[in-house]
């Protein structure tokens, strides 16, 4: 069975004829070629596939495209500011080197963005708790926590345009 989607992704309306079993992550990567959202464990453990669904962090490997009809999805490709500047969270990961291999980074940035939109000034403990659904096998998390703190301390960051 196929369904017709109507999903707003990074501010753009998208519509495709897809199989009902299409997972949101496959819709983003294969139908829209937005390959910044990664498939990690594919079992809703690792958080690499985290995107924002109407502003809230969800694991797109465990959501059907059919379930998010008429919803707003934000992926890492939509994380930057309107003028092309990195978002404070993206810049925080750059400044504090919150990554090594980078595989978990899109998910980390989306989960951190959701955290800061709810709690603009989180403690270290709150950051660690909010990111418990995102696994990183490189950094040991220390620099990721620092990156989120950097973003919290620079909420108005802008580089004045695209890099």
């Amino acid at each position: 069975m196929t369904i017709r989607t109507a999903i707003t992704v990074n501010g753009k309306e998208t519509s495709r004829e897809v199989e009902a079993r299409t997972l949101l992550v496959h819709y983003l990567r294969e139908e829209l070629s937005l390959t910044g959202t990664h498939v990690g464990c594919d079992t809703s453990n690792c958080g690499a596939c985290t995107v924002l669904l109407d502003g809230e962090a969800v694991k797109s490997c465990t959501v059907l495209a059919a379930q998010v009809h008429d919803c707003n999805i934000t992926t890492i490709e939509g994380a930057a500011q309107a003028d092309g500047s990195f978002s404070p969270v993206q810049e925080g990961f750059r400044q504090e080197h919150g990554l090594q291999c980078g595989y978990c980074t899109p998910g980390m940035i989306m989960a951190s963005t959701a955290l800061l939109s709810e709690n603009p000034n989180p403690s270290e403990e709150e950051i660690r708790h909010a990111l418990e659904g995102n696994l990183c096998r490189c950094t040991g998390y220390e620099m990721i926590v620092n990156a989120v703190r950097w973003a919290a301390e620079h909420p108005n960051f802008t580089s004045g345009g695209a890099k």
Partner: protein
Amino acid sequence: MIPAQFDYVEATSVADAIRLLAEHGDEAKLLAGGHSLIPLMKLRLVTPATLIDVTHIKELSYIKEDGNNIVIGALTRHRDIEQSELVKKHLPLVAHVAGEVGDPQVRNRGTLGGSLVHGDPAADLPAAALATGATMVIAGQNGERRVSAQEFFIDFLETDVQPGEILTAIEFPKHTDAGWAYEKFVRRAMDYAIVGVALQLGAKPGVALVNMSNKPHLAQSASQAISKGAAIADVLAVINDNTNPPEDLNATVEYREHLARVLTQRAFATASK
């Protein structure tokens, strides 16, 4: 991993869901938050012919006060329960346990009803429903019926919800100002409990165990001992009565029994603070 093919229909109300269940028969499954069902479908352990999506039935997402009860709609998300002032005030155990499920992303999607009808003995919320003495409201073509949490859980991933029926609400008796604790033993933050203990003190006490049986387990002897005011040592002596713990890579039966005693003791210490 990709689920097997299925037909997808969306229910817009409880009546609509019941009608669709009757129409599609026992090859149909209800889809709520999907955080138990979709992983099983991706592993193809479950291959429903039809998915009836109830995600958007707004009438089943609510938290309200009703006399001595707090009633929570089956499609209320863990996140909304965790953050509800009403639940925090009258059912602090339930609010806390909702915040212990999985991780923030899972709690943004998973629903109370979905977790309960899945009937996983390793899940958190069934234990909270048992310890607090909740009642399940189940709707079908013949109207509504009520079942106690204790009778609701029948076997591994099996509940009293019959083909054609849908869990619509959960009625929790208020436990305002009573002691409570949830002790969850895990190796990683977002894991299922190796063993968990949900303890509700007060006028209607109850203690339930996570991952200590083939179904979510109410420790009846221990609950009765608590209501008679028994010493903690006497509660610990019977905490493992009628359990049937699984043995797996994480723990042997003996280790799980040991954990149940230790965590119950900790739960009493935490609850009295």
